[in-house]
């Protein structure tokens, strides 16, 4: 596995899509907005619809500020107070948007678990690692504290942490970054959730450790059959794990396709730009490509990417292109694609 020099491996590196598995998550027309200054609302996620099948990995890609994290927090019911949500989120036949706070607490940690970006700060600094893992088991599986701690040690062993008995007694600051992320994964998988939301789980880690964590996630997915929503701004990392990939830009989905299709035939100018930004080992001296501009600031009228798009014309600045299925299971939102 090579995360550092992925360009050669990118095409077709993802898993084969398995469309006939039963559906686990269906998000339809999800919008999330926050009250902004002067009574205006700022929409961070707009009309998002996608599905995840059982045991499948969906990669969510986009720059910072594209609404990737807000989407996953919506699935967890952990959006900050003040967030307005519309649309529906259906998980395993249940409508999450109708959940009471009590139902959410039963859902979080048991059906859906989350691994966060920053393993350094995502754990409580004054609580033993084993205790933090045991807590989930006490809550959802009604284990005694003692039994839960024993289970926590087993879980630490299952994520390949050496001498797990000792590590369970350690505090987070005594573990390295990679080990903490392993412990976070152990915590997330403690109750064998059906869906694991991994929000940039490898971004804060060293490249060699990144590869180990990705391997671990794939291994555990195979063992437990967990579906994964894998969020990253790094296409190379996503290509290692995802069956299907959703590219987001400024709160909208711009392209949605099986992983190998997306890399073989990227259609949206933004996706093409993202792939071009990857370093290419065949041309080591070439200057790295960057997409001009940034996501933040005022949204342009029409297509949200129009102010940075090399192909944009008058039509792109007037109307917003809808998502279309241009090839079997390959969706794109761009006027320039036939």
């Amino acid at each position: 596995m090579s995360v550092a020099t992925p360009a050669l491996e990118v095409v077709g590196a993802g898993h084969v899509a398995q469309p006939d598995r039963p559906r686990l998550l269906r998000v339809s027309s999800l919008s999330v907005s926050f009250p902004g200054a002067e009574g205006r609302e700022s929409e961070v996620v707009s009309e998002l619809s996608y599905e995840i099948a059982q045991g499948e990995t969906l990669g969510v890609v986009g720059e910072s500020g594209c609404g990737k994290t807000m989407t996953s927090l919506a699935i967890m019911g952990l959006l900050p107070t003040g967030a307005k949500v519309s649309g529906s989120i259906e998980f395993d036949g249940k409508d999450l948007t109708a959940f009471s706070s009590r139902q959410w607490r039963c859902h979080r940690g048991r059906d859906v678990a989350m691994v966060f970006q920053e393993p350094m700060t995502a754990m409580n600094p004054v609580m033993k690692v084993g205790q933090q893992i045991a807590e989930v088991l006490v809550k959802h599986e009604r284990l005694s504290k003692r039994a839960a701690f024993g289970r926590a040690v087993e879980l630490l062993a299952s994520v390949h942490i050496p001498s797990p008995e000792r590590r369970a007694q350690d505090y987070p600051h005594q573990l390295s970054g990679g080990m903490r992320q392993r412990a976070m994964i152990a915590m997330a998988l403690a109750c064998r959730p059906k869906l694991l939301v991994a929000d940039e789980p490898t971004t804060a880690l060293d490249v060699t450790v990144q590869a180990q964590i990705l391997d671990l996630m794939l291994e555990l997915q195979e063992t437990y059959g967990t579906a994964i929503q894998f969020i990253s701004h790094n296409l190379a990392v996503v290509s290692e794990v995802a069956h299907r990939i959703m590219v987001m830009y400024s709160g909208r989905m711009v392209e949605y396709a099986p992983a190998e299709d997306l890399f073989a035939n990227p259609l949206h100018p933004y996706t093409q730009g993202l792939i071009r930004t990857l370093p290419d080992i065949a041309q080591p001296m070439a200057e790295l490509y960057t997409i001009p501009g940034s996501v933040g600031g005022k949204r342009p009228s029409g297509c949200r990417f129009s102010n940075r798009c090399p192909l944009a014309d008058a039509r792109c600045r007037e109307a917003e292109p809808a998502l279309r299925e241009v090839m079997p299971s390959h969706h794109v939102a761009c006027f320039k694609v036939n």
Partner: protein
Amino acid sequence: MLRYTFFRLVQAAFVLLVMTFLLFMLIGMMPGDPVENMLEGNPALTPELARQMRELYGVGVPLPVRYWHWLTAAFQGDFGFSSLYFRPVLEILGPALLQTLKLMVATIMLSIPLSLLLGAIAALRPGGWMDTVISFFAFASISLPNFWLSLILIIVFAVQLGWLPASGTPLAETPSLGLQIYHSILPVTVLTMFFVGPLLRYVRASMIETMSSDYIRTARAKGLSETTVIVKHALRNALIPMVTVLALGFGMLFSGALVVETIFGILGMGKMIFDAIRYVDFNLALIGLLLATIVTLVSNLLADLAYAWLDPRITLK
């Protein structure tokens, strides 16, 4: 840990030694002397007699020499006589210290839970109506002068309503615990009001910061109830910076007790130091101020030990 504590105690002893010198010099530089006080109250005292008394008290001797005499005597356990009470200073100090400690312990035992509760509630929804009410109370507590609040409470509850006694000291020779508590209600209320305000502001700020940290989001993502998240995950982390505030607050409370003890006529440390300085009782003022130094040194040491106990990331070496 033991080595660290030992080292800190040695350090504290050294600081204390330096403080005896500084305090001795400062008090020595105060205008007036005990003999002058006696002259004022007694016209029959002749200048010849005054000279003899000055010699007897050693007032004329240069300060550094007097300091040396005092220090050598102090190391033998002799801290001198009080010129105000005509008794060894330690005999006066003991009961006064006990009174002040009772007052401070009662205040602290009320203030800590109260500020934790109010601070945590205010932090749940910053800017909400609960926060507004609690913050208003906190600012009132910080702004109202001690002496003013004491007098207002005395006027309302002692004079007009007649529910509570205006004096902090029961008249009985050996007052029962109930009677002592009854007489302490007003002074303890004033001191608690004085202490809770700043304390709860710190708890609030610390809680708001803690509640927005990543590990609180992790705790919520586990499906834990909000109460568990706050009590088990947030409060302990939020408490760590509170230790410093408490240690510093100890000194503040000690000085706050001075005003409250004077108004409520409680014969505590505050009242003792106040009288000693006012009537130039050299030895008594010195031992009183030294004790205040010791309280500060000890509370700082305890704060450092508490840090290590609360936060596993800190090891004392």
